[in-house]
């Protein structure tokens, strides 16, 4: 995996992903390992994303690496009209690894083609966000001790949620049964369902979550955004039926855990936070371990 860019989760084989997840377990036990002290990591956030940026910087810092970069473009030469290609070429001279977030879809793949150093995609528009997918997989592995033969319930905006699409694709490698809960307007796109069908796996579709939750090993919640609806009344009608509250957590499996890519708005009530099923904040912390593992692998330090 040394020097191998990660742009889309499918760039890594299942074995490579598992290698990263196993290493992440090591970082969970011992997060402070200053094995990258001589390394410089460039963190180029052409679009602000405080949460992802801090997670990457925290991971880099715990490895002892120095971080250079920006979290908004107004103070950079990009605002003077420099091309993405030139920015990347230059920065790749100053660093050992580039982490890029960009609002343009495909920008990260393009960056990896012009960069002299490996590139990690930290989100390119509505396209890919592979480290989110890896930390989701890690959270499933940590809570279930396996990725195989699980029942996963995905709730909310399954149409536009890129984290949902990547997770579904990745989980088709592990004999998953999918339970898809969404308003009709926001169903999982057929292009993503194709991955499930190609593997001959089972999936069930619902418009409310009560029934599905009882079958779940993992409940993956996502935010439903008002602007996704052509009819605002439709949004008002459905929004509360996709809110997970404590009173729904009866008769659930004992191993069931709730994940959410965060930020949450109102799709998980705060009364769920203190239940044994709530795992979304641990999930955010897992992001740091997974990114530590990934950075170490790509830099050839582990």
């Amino acid at each position, binding site marked *: 995996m040394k020097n191998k860019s990660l742009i*889309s989760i499918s760039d890594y084989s299942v074995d490579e992903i598992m290698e990263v997840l196993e290493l992440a377990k090591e970082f969970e036990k011992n997060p402070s390992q200053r094995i990258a002290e001589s390394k410089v990591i460039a963190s180029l956030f052409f679009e602000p994303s405080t949460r992802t940026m801090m997670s990457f910087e925290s991971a880099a810092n715990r490895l002892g690496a120095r971080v250079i970069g920006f979290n908004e473009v107004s103070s950079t030469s990009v605002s003077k009209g420099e*091309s*993405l*290609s030139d920015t990347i070429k230059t920065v790749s001279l100053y660093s050992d690894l580039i982490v890029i977030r960009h*609002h*343009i*879809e*495909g*920008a990260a*793949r*393009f960056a990896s083609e012009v960069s002299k150093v490996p590139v990690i995609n930290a989100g*390119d*528009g*509505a*396209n*890919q966000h592979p480290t989110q997918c890896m930390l989701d997989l890690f959270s499933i592995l940590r809570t279930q001790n396996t990725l195989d033969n699980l029942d996963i319930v995905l709730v909310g905006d399954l149409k536009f949620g890129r984290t949902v699409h990547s997770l579904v694709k990745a989980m088709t490698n592990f004999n998953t049964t999918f339970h898809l809960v969404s308003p009709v307007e926001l169903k999982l796109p057929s*292009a993503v369902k194709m991955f499930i069908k190609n593997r001959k796996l089972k999936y069930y579709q619902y418009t409310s979550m009560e029934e599905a939750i009882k079958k779940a090993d993992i409940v993956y919640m996502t935010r439903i955004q008002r602007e996704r609806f052509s009819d605002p009344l439709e949004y008002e009608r459905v929004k509360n039926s996709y809110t997970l509250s404590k009173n729904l957590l009866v008769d659930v499996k004992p191993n069931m855990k709730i994940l959410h890519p965060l930020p949450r708005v109102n799709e998980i009530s705060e009364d769920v936070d203190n239940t044994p099923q709530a795992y979304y904040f641990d999930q955010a912390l897992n992001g740091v371990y997974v990114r530590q593992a990934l950075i170490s692998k790509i830099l050839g330090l582990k």
Partner: protein
Amino acid sequence: MEKVKKQLVVSAIENGTVIDHIPNDNVSTVVRILDLYKLDNEIFLGANLNSKKYGKKGIIKIKDKFFEDFEINKIALVASTATIIEIKDYKVYRKFEVTVPETISGIIKCFNPKCVTNMEITSTKFKIVDKKDIKLMCHYCEKITKKETLEFF
């Protein structure tokens, strides 16, 4: 009569390539995809020709020009029925049907307006994920450009 026409269509050039059975509406697209307007060779274009198989068809003949297979297979995206006939000394030297390639670079635009190929760079690259219905997955934004949204540079 049929025989005479056949002779005219196929053997009218001494050496060169005939692209036959082009869907009638796509003759000019094929010209563009193959960059034929850049050639100095004699080129004959035909449209609205009768075809037993397809009703109306188009045909292109290019004198003294032979294509590489990968080069000419590009036209399969818009002319999947096309037959390539190579002529040497007025005789059919080689005849084959076009096949849809695995990947295609340039020529086609990504339909996604937010794709980097429509904003920062102009070269495109696609993997053909469905050869029958022509579905192209963009190498960069990973969105699918379908037959209905095919647009050429």
